């Protein structure tokens, strides 16, 4: 196996502007926020993002003016309301959206996993998702039964970025024994072409060998792995740290105007060149751990 451990900035530098990128995570956890902040530092723009249910990561890209198009099931801040910069950009026509339901977006990721160009689904028949864009969704019929289906196009992401729990230097990524499983990261990873994973912790290969059934992303799918503790912050990384409610609230408030949103990016992202500089805004890793860490259920 090849060594794939690299730095966050090196991993992200591989992504050209104009790329189609899939994100892992879910509304309140494990969005690849450290990676997104690095994208913002490097000014990689004109991006198309595919995701399941997401929010803060996509909102930061919209605030930075780097998002061109989003395809997925949800963008929002959960308890803290709509995603303010994303909403503003969509309403101003600066960001295009293609809406999908959960089964239809998962089918699109699943098609990519299986090397197919499309998948049939039922749930969105009769909805306004059907007529939004014939390049990604069309009605079709089953060749055997004649039943109507929505044909949804395979996701063809050039890059995929997700935040995981722990990995070895070869890029074998493991989840904990008990976790919050409300996501489809494994499917998104399985259908990826160039997969970048940030993780909370780099562990010895020997640790991976001990419980190989926990390896949800094997090294063979991975192009680069980078250490980024609290890489989902201010969202949670379940079993490692909880969500930073105060900061998510502060983020939501900062989004109330474009000027405040830009000031937020200046203060938290552009102020320093690295993820460590971001963490330093919160007193550093030790202080964050002290405040937000949770007991490891598989420890």
């Amino acid at each position, binding site marked *: 196996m090849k060594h794939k451990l690299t730095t966050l900035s090196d991993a992200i530098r591989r992504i050209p502007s104009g790329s189609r990128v899939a994100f892992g995570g879910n509304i309140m956890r494990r969005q690849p926020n450290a990676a997104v902040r690095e994208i913002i530092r490097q000014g990689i723009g004109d991006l198309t993002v595919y995701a399941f249910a997401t929010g803060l990561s996509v909102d930061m890209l919209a605030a930075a003016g780097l998002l061109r198009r989003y395809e997925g099931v949800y963008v929002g801040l959960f308890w803290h309301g709509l995603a303010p910069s994303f909403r503003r950009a969509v309403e101003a026509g600066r960001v295009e959206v293609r809406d999908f*339901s*959960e*089964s239809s977006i998962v089918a699109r990721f699943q098609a990519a996993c299986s090397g197919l160009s499309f998948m049939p689904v039922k749930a969105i028949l*009769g909805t*306004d998702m059907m007529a939004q864009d014939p390049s990604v969704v069309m009605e079709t019929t089953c060749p055997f039964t004649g039943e*109507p289906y929505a044909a949804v196009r395979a996701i063809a992401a050039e890059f995929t970025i997700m935040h995981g729990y722990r990995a070895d230097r070869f890029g074998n990524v493991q989840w904990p024994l008990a976790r919050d499983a409300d*996501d489809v990261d494994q499917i998104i990873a399985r259908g990826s072409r160039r997969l970048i994973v940030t993780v909370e912790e780099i562990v010895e290969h020997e640790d991976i060998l001990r419980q190989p059934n926990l390896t949800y992303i094997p090294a063979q799918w991975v192009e680069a792995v980078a250490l980024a503790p609290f890489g989902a912050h201010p969202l949670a990384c*379940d079993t490692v740290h909880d*969500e930073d409610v105060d900061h998510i609230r502060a983020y939501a408030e900062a989004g109330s105007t474009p000027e405040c949103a830009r000031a937020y990016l200046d203060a938290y992202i552009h102020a320093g060149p690295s993820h460590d500089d971001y963490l330093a805004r919160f007193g550093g890793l030790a202080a964050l751990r002290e405040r937000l860490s*949770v007991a490891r259920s598989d420890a």
Partner: protein
Amino acid sequence: MSTDYTVNELMAAVIAREIADDDLVFTGVGTAGRPFTLAVGLPVVATRLAQAAHAPGASLYWGNLLSPDLDRMPDSWLQDSFTRWPCASQLTETSQKIDMLARCRFDVSFESAAQVDRYGNLNITRINHPDGSLKIRLIGCLAQPEHLAFVRKPIIVVDLSHRVFVEEVDFVTSFGHRRRGVTRERYLLPGPGPQLCVTDKAVFDFQGEGGSMRVRSLHHGVSLDEVFGLMGFRPEVADDLAETPPPTAAQVDLIRTRIDPGRSLLRA
């Protein structure tokens, strides 16, 4: 009969009667304030009322947890509380829930919406200007289309208002019974579509012409004119229009002392 009850307690009692023994009930994760009460609080309280009475075997799906232990409900709704909540099954990932929906394994679901129309079409995606251009971007679609396509008894839970109850939704996120003459039969959707709409003023079913909304009962003290005045279209009215049965004193007591003593579920 209890006269001391809140509208939330009444709505919970109405929903509880719709939950049968051994039903698998889909609960959303909701947001803050009133939307949380509508999407999460009322369904959870109703499920517990049903379990205490006629449906001991009913169980919940909540946040990708199957049958979480409702006697050990988390104190807070932060991420870590969900991760640690004891449950019968933590599905490996969300696509398993989606497959469970598509295989019609869910009996009851609850739907909130920014707009609901005469035929139970729902919109949680976008509000348009009169010319059809985008005015307000909302959250997206989530799994609501799956609920209306596959669940045996989807129940819409919203407050009655002119803004929400519109003749035709701006965007069909989830297909109800009919749109511009096209019905569910056209798409061979496996589920029956929305079955009930429970509001703070009245309860509706979809037994009207062509699957259209029909007033089934009015809450105590609410008139038909008040209901019509809060809607952007005129629903049909059931021949046997009744007063919504109030919660019993025992139900109210159960909610206040056992199910939700801290008002964290029926909070707004």
